[in-house]
C-alpha cells in the first residue's frame, strides 16, 4: 500500500499534502509506504507502479471554502479537470491519472483526497484552516488504510 502526499512546503497551503504524508509516516504502519512528492506526473506514474492500493493527497482549488475536503475514487471515474488544472506542473496529477487510465496503468484502487487551498504565496506557512484539514484528512486516510487489505 502506498500513500503519496503532494505539495510544496515553500508555497503556503500547497504544503497540505506533505503535512498529511508526514502525519501518516509517524505512525510507522507495517506494509504502508509513504512518499512526499512534488507532483510531477510522469514520476508519479512510476511511483505507483506495482502498488495495488494507492492514496494520494494534494491541495486543490475549486471554489469551495478553504479547508474543504474532496474525495475522488480515481480508479472508477475521471478526475474533474477544473479542480486539478491549477497545478504548478504542466503534466501533473490529473494528467498522470488520466494518461495512466488510457494506458491501463492505474492501480486497482486509487483514492485521491483534495484539500481546498487558499493562499499559495512563496515563502508562506500553511494556513490554520489547511493545517486542521490536513489533520482530518490524515485521520480519514488512516481509517481507509486500516480497512484495506495489505496488498503490495
Amino acid at each position, binding site marked *: 500500500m502506498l500513500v503519496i502526499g503532494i505539495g510544496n512546503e515553500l508555497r503556503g497551503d500547497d504544503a497540505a499534502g506533505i503535512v498529511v504524508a508526514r502525519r501518516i509516516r509517524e505512525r510507522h504502519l507495517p506494509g504502508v509506504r509513504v512518499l512526499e512528492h512534488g507532483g510531477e506526473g510522469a514520476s508519479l506514474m512510476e511511483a505507483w507502479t506495482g502498488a495495488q492500493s494507492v492514496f494520494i493527497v494534494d491541495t486543490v482549488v475549486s471554489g469551495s471554502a478553504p479547508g474543504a475536503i474532496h474525495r475522488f475514487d480515481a480508479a472508477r471515474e475521471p478526475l474533474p479537470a477544473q479542480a486539478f*488544472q491549477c497545478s504548478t506542473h504542466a503534466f501533473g496529477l490529473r494528467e498522470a491519472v*488520466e*494518461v495512466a487510465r488510457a494506458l491501463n496503468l492505474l492501480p486497482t484502487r486509487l483514492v485521491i483526497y483534495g484539500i481546498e487551498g487558499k493562499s499559495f504565496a*512563496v515563502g508562506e506557512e500553511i494556513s490554520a484552516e489547511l493545517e486542521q484539514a490536513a489533520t482530518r484528512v490524515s485521520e480519514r486516510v488512516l481509517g481507509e488504510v486500516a480497512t484495506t487489505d495489505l496488498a503490495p
Partner: protein
Amino acid sequence: MKAKTIKVDVLARVEGEGAMTVKIQNRRVTDVKLRIFEPPRFFEAFLRGRKFNEVPDITARICGICPVAYQMSACHAIEDAFGLKVEGPLRELRRLLYCGEWIESHALHVYMLHAPDFLGYEDSIQMAKDHRETVQRGLFLKKTGNAIVNLLGGREIHPINVRVGGFYKIPSKKELASLAESLKSARDAAIETVKWVAKFSFPAFERDYEFVALRHPGEYPFNEGRLVSNRGLDITIREYDQHFAEEHLAHSNALHSVLKDRGAYFVGPLARYNLNFDRLSPLSQETARDSGLGSVCRNPFQSIIVRSVELVYACDEALRILDSLEMPDAPAMAVEPRVGVGYGCTEAPRGILYHRYRIDEHGLILDAKIVPPTSQNLKTIESDLWQFADNNLDTPQDTLQRQCEQAVRNYDPCISCATHFLKLEIEREPEPADSAGRKCEIDAED
C-alpha cells in the same frame, strides 16, 4: 471600433504561471506582453545569511523539473569563489547526473507537452488514447532519466546528494553499471523519437536570432565553457554581468534579460545545437542529418526535433561515461571557504542558468543572483509572437490562438522557476468580441 478579444485564461502545457496578451488593431500587431508571476527573487533574498553548503539544496527547490541544473550552477559558482576545480571521475559523474535531467526534462516536453500541438490533440491525455505505444516510449525515456537522477541524486524528487566539491555519497560501480542496459534501449527510443517528430509539419517561421550558449573546447556543453553567440559574444562566465542586463517591466514580475546594447537573445536546445553541432557525438549528428536537419536550425517550431536530438546525445553521453568511468577516491573534494565572489553558468534543459554568489569569510552568503533560462527567453518569446501573429493576420482566430500557444511552448518555458498558469489573450480590432478560449475559473493566484 471594438477590439476583438480571444482569451485563453489558461495556456496549458507550460510549466508556469503567467499571462500573455497579443493585441491586433487595424490589421497590425500593436502589442505583445508576456506577464509572469515569478518568485525567484524570493530565493535570492532567502539565501542571504545561509551557509554556502546549504545553497545547492535550497536552490534545487526553485524548480521541480530542473533541480539538478540549479544544484550544478550553484556548486560551480561557489567552487569558483573558493578557487576549487572539480575534475576527473567526480566531474564525469556530474555530467552523468546532468544527462539524467536532460533526458527526464526533454522526454516530458517532447512527448507530453509539445507533441500534442503537432498531432492536433488538446493534451497528452487525448493523445495517449490514440498513440499508446508512442506515449509509453516517452514514459520509458522519462523513467530512464529518472533512474539516473535517483541513483546519483539520492532520492526520487528533490535530489539531495549533490554538494559543493562533489557528492555526499557515490553509488557503487555495480549500481552505476546497472543503468547501462536501459540506457541502450533509451538511446534507441530517442532515435525513434527524432524520426517521429521530424515527420511533423512545421509552420514556416524563421527569425534572425542571436543564439547564446556555452561552448567547451571538447564537449557538447553541460557544466562548463565560455559563453558564446553567433554574433561574436565570446566571454567567460565571470564577465556575464558586464554583457547581460535584466530589465524590470511593469507587466511582469519576471525580469527580462537582454544583451546590453543589443536586446533579446535565444537560449536553450536550438542555441546549443546551432553553436555546438560539431561537439555532438557522431551518432547524434548522424541522427540529426538523417532527420533532414542541417547543422543550423532557425525555426523555433522545429525545436522539438533538436530537443529529441539532444535526447539521443544525453543517452549516448551517459553510456560513454558509464563505459569509461573510473571510480573516484572520495565522494567529494575538500572545500575551504574563503571570501569572494563566485560565478557559475550551466546548461539547464531550457538553456543557460546563471548564478552569482558573494560569500564572507565564514562561508555565509552575502548576496545571490540567479537568472533562469526562461527569463532570458521571455523577450524572444514576445518577439516571436509579435512576428508570428503579424505574418498570420488572415489565419482564423482559433487557429492563430492555438499556434501562438504552440509558439510559446517552442521554448518549453519553465516558470516553475516562476509559475502556475500562462494565460493567453489575443485582442483583435475591429472584429466583434469572441470568447473561444478556455477558461480556468479557479485561480490560485489571488
